[in-house]
């Protein structure tokens, strides 16, 4: 057994992520050109959008793993749902912060209550609620069951958040990459996809580690329980 939660696989993954980040920074800040309308602020895009999309993906994995838990009742699904939501929350926080900074520069305000921003903030609070349920001092199986149901409910919120710009008229700009008439510079498009890949790698890397940590936390809980049972047994033997 090694001392941490790393394995040869995650070390490679981690190294790739870090190298990818460095390359992404180079492309985002130096190599890719400034935008015609947004000028230099467009560079925010390469962090803001990938973190958002990867965070949405993370919540979908939480929803899927919650369904998996409710169907199979196996610990792995439960831990997977929790780990994915935790990493997703961090990425969504990054989205919010980068978005606020970007908004300050282009809209003049950090925050405005349009549908996309409102729903993102709500989604963030919902995830915090989900993580709070995961920390309830309960019997593990009961906690997992509650968490799975709350996790399931992240699904509609994530979908609404993702399609907010399409469903409502918003200040926030709508889908840019998938729109057919989008004329995006090749380097910019490449930088964006690089961002997706790098933040995807970061997500998987952190997910594996969080999965292992949560798994070990459960083992520690079990140890505590076994210990307590053994102690009661010893007491009983001592009396008789």
């Amino acid at each position, binding site marked *: 057994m090694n001392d941490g939660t790393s394995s040869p696989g995650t070390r490679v993954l981690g190294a790739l992520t870090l190298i990818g980040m460095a390359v992404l920074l180079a492309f985002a800040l130096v190599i890719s050109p400034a935008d015609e309308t947004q000028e230099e602020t467009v560079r925010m895009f390469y962090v803001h959008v990938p973190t958002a999309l990867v965070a949405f993906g993370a919540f979908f994995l939480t929803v899927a793993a919650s369904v998996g838990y*409710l169907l199979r009742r196996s610990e792995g699904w439960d831990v997977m749902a929790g780990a994915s939501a935790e990493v997703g929350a961090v990425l969504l926080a990054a989205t919010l912060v980068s978005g606020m900074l970007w908004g300050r520069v282009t809209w003049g305000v950090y925050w405005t209550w349009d549908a996309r921003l409102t729903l993102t903030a709500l989604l963030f609070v919902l995830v915090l*609620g989900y993580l*709070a*349920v995961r920390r*309830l*001092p309960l019997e593990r199986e009961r906690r997992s*069951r509650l968490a799975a*149901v*709350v996790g399931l409910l992240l699904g509609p*919120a994530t979908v609404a958040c993702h399609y907010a710009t399409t469903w409502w008229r918003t200040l926030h700009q709508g889908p840019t990459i998938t729109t057919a008439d989008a004329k995006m510079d090749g380097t910019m498009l490449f930088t964006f996809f690089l961002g997706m890949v790098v933040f995807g790698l970061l997500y998987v890397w952190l997910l594996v580690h969080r999965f292992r940590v949560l798994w070990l936390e459960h083992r520690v809980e079990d140890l505590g329980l076994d210990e307590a049972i053994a102690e009661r047994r010893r007491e009983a033997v001592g009396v008789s």
Partner: protein
Amino acid sequence: MLRDAALVAGKDLRLEARSRVALNQVAPFALLVLMLFAFALDPDRGILARVTPGLYWVAVLFSGLLAVQRAFAVESTDGVADALRLSGLDPAGVFLGKVAAVAVQLLALEVLLGLGVVVLYGADPSSVALLVPTCLAATLGLAAAGSVYGILAAGLRVRETLLPLLLLPVLAPVLIAATSAFESALGGFPGEGWRWLGLLVVFAALYTGLGLATFGVLLEDG
């Protein structure tokens, strides 16, 4: 399933008719919230009239939270939860019954608060055609989402703090949609409000469906 629902709803409403907790505590609380808003915003009619829809729904949300907490507090003491599980009632029926009972109490609260804003804030309730369906759809959404999270938090030691954290963000879309629908109804241009009513209906249907599907799992807990 519907028969079970009627049984549970009947039980809850009888409980309320005899204990009068909603009548004697939640309803005065709701009116108190309306008065506090008036104090906070300076009873200058100009401001109050503009923000009436929002204040109305915030008041409904807060007093509704109390009603939900109460509806599930009665299920979590004295081994009632076990009895409910052993009763053999269909979980979906129990869910619908709870939703119905909470919805009836919420509707009564909304009528009371409606009278409150008409009298205290000078609101003009003439667009009844939009106001009433908005109330009905919003109430169903509140009751359905409230019941899912209410049973989830019931019986936990941290339920008083956990329930608002879980429930309020979920109910935010109801607050937004109902407020917008009310704004257009009270402002005299009801045409805008129908889209928001649609959103309320979708929300209510979504949470009723989720509740029907997951209530069995949630009831397993003691």
